[in-house]
Every structure is written in structure tokens, then in C-alpha cells.
């Protein structure tokens, strides 16, 4: 969602965004529509084409699914930066480091990049987080983890709780921006 909001800035820096998931085209189209994602979402069933070769495949969950990840590829195709989640709920609270790495590549802006336009029927995943549940869900995470952080004694654990709270806050802000566009 943050990347969706940041897409124009990334284009200015010469970087585009493509997503990959194990889901079908139809479910990807539903996700794009649900969260107003302006970049392509490709289908990689079983992770055989992209996720497994990139070592971003978690065979232990749901019969196999990708680790949430961001891999920055330079214009020569080489990997420049990688974020890989530690679990299903782990996301970067900020894309600052990604932006820093893209800036360091010193690329020319990408012009006239047209938004992604899915062309298949939308088929909703009944287990997907609903739009109307998004706010309560992440507010719960934000306040719950903030409260937990106040109780934890171990410094590392407290930092983890705070990081989760910040991530939830970033998602809430990100969705606020998406909805407004």
C-alpha cells in the first residue's frame, strides 16, 4: 500500500513496481481493486517461477506461500536490496531504505507509465481482509502492541512491539492516502 502511494515518486527516481503472488489472476485482480493498487500483480502458483528461485518461498505455511518481500533489481537486473519478512505480519514501517537505494542508482525518470489495468473477472477471496475491517484491524494492532510495549521489560521485545505498532500506523496512514486518491 505504501508502495502504491509512493509509485509516482518511485517513477520519478526511475523505479517501477511489480508484485507477484501465488494467487490466481482473478484474486489478484480483486486485491488490486480492493486496495486500489496501481501496479501489476502477477500470478506465480507454487512459487516455481519467481519465489522459489529467489529464496522467498515458505513451504511450511498454507501448503507453501511466498515470504512477504521487496526485492530491488537494478537496471542491469542485479539485486540491489532485499527485504524479507520474518513472518506473515512483518512489513517495513517505512520505505525510506528502499528509496535510498533507488536514489543511489541515479536513474532517469520513467515517463508515461500507465497504471495497471486488470482485465479478468474479479473473484474475491472470502478469507481476505475486508475493506471495512481494515481500520479496526490495524487500529487494534497499533494500540495493542503499543500497550504491550509499555509492559515488556526486555528491550528487544519492547522494540519489536513498538516496530509492530509503527507498522500498523503506517498501514493506517497508507490506506488513508489510497482512499483519498
Amino acid at each position: 500500500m505504501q508502495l502504491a502511494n509512493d509509485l509516482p515518486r518511485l517513477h520519478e527516481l526511475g523505479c517501477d513496481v511489480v508484485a507477484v503472488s501465488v494467487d490466481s489472476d482473478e484474486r489478484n485482480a480483486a486485491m488490486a481493486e480492493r486496495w486500489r493498487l496501481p501496479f501489476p500483480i502477477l500470478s506465480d502458483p507454487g512459487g516455481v517461477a519467481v519465489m522459489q528461485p529467489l529464496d522467498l518461498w515458505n513451504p511450511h505455511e498454507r501448503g507453501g506461500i511466498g515470504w512477504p518481500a521487496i526485492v530491488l533489481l537494478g537496471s542491469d537486473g542485479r539485486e540491489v536490496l532485499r527485504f524479507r519478512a520474518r513472518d506473515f505480519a512483518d512489513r517495513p514501517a517505512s520505505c525510506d531504505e528502499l528509496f535510498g537505494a533507488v536514489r543511489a542508482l541515479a536513474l532517469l525518470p520513467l515517463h508515461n507509465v500507465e497504471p495497471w489495468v486488470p482485465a479478468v473477472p474479479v473473484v474475491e477471496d472470502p478469507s481476505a481482509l475486508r475493506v471495512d475491517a481494515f481500520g479496526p484491524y490495524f487500529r487494534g494492532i497499533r494500540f495493542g502492541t503499543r500497550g504491550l510495549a509499555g509492559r515488556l521489560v526486555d528491550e528487544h521485545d519492547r522494540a519489536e512491539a513498538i516496530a509492530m505498532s509503527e507498522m500498523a500506523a503506517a498501514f493506517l496512514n497508507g490506506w488513508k492516502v489510497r482512499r483519498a486518491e
Partner: protein
Amino acid sequence: MYFSSDNAIARLYPAVKSNGDSLFSARALHPCTPDLPQDPAHKFGSLREIPHFSTRQAEAVSGSQPRDSRARMSDTSPRDPGSDMARPGSVDFGTSLRSAYGGAMFDLRALRRVDGALALVIYRGDW
């Protein structure tokens, strides 16, 4: 709901159409291997100071999920060049993935021939 059948990718990556015959190897994907030229971008996040523990290494050692709990945005630390196990396989960029472009296929070679950089996002259906 149906959307237009325009294939935006083809417009994004016109070079793919004319020049995309090479495969994209693991070596190309992981520039930290010793015989590759150093890139200033690799300085980010003190990459070389973070002990890397690849998924497959972790599975081999613990039989469970990886424990590289500090692997965050900066996880481009070198795969152990002496260990094949630590090196991921090759992405066959000669293949295509289905996309939601009304049956249009996304040519993975586009990921190599992109004019600029590309942030490849691994998504899950969660959120």
C-alpha cells in the same frame, strides 16, 4: 468487474520485445558474490556486517522455519560463496507468468530488460 485489456507491461518495457533472450541467473541476482563488480548501492544497511542465514540453511540446520530474525530491508548480505546450498536457484526468465491482463502473459524477461530499476514485491492475500 472487467477492465480494459491493455497490456501496460508491454508499454512499460518495450525493450523486452526486441531483446530478451538471456536467462537471468542467480549470480546476476546476487551481486555480492566475490567475482562480481562492487556496486555503491551495496553499501546500504551495513550488509556485510549482518550474518546471513538463508532459508535453506536454516531448514537444514533446524528443520524448522528460518530464524534470521534480523533479516530486514537490508538482507542482501552475501550468500556464502562457498556453499551451493546457500545460493538460490536460477530464475528462468525465458518463461512467462500469467497476469490479470485478460490472458496476456507477463514475460519474465521484462524484469531484466527494464529501463530503470524494479521493486519486485512478493504479495500475500492477507493485506
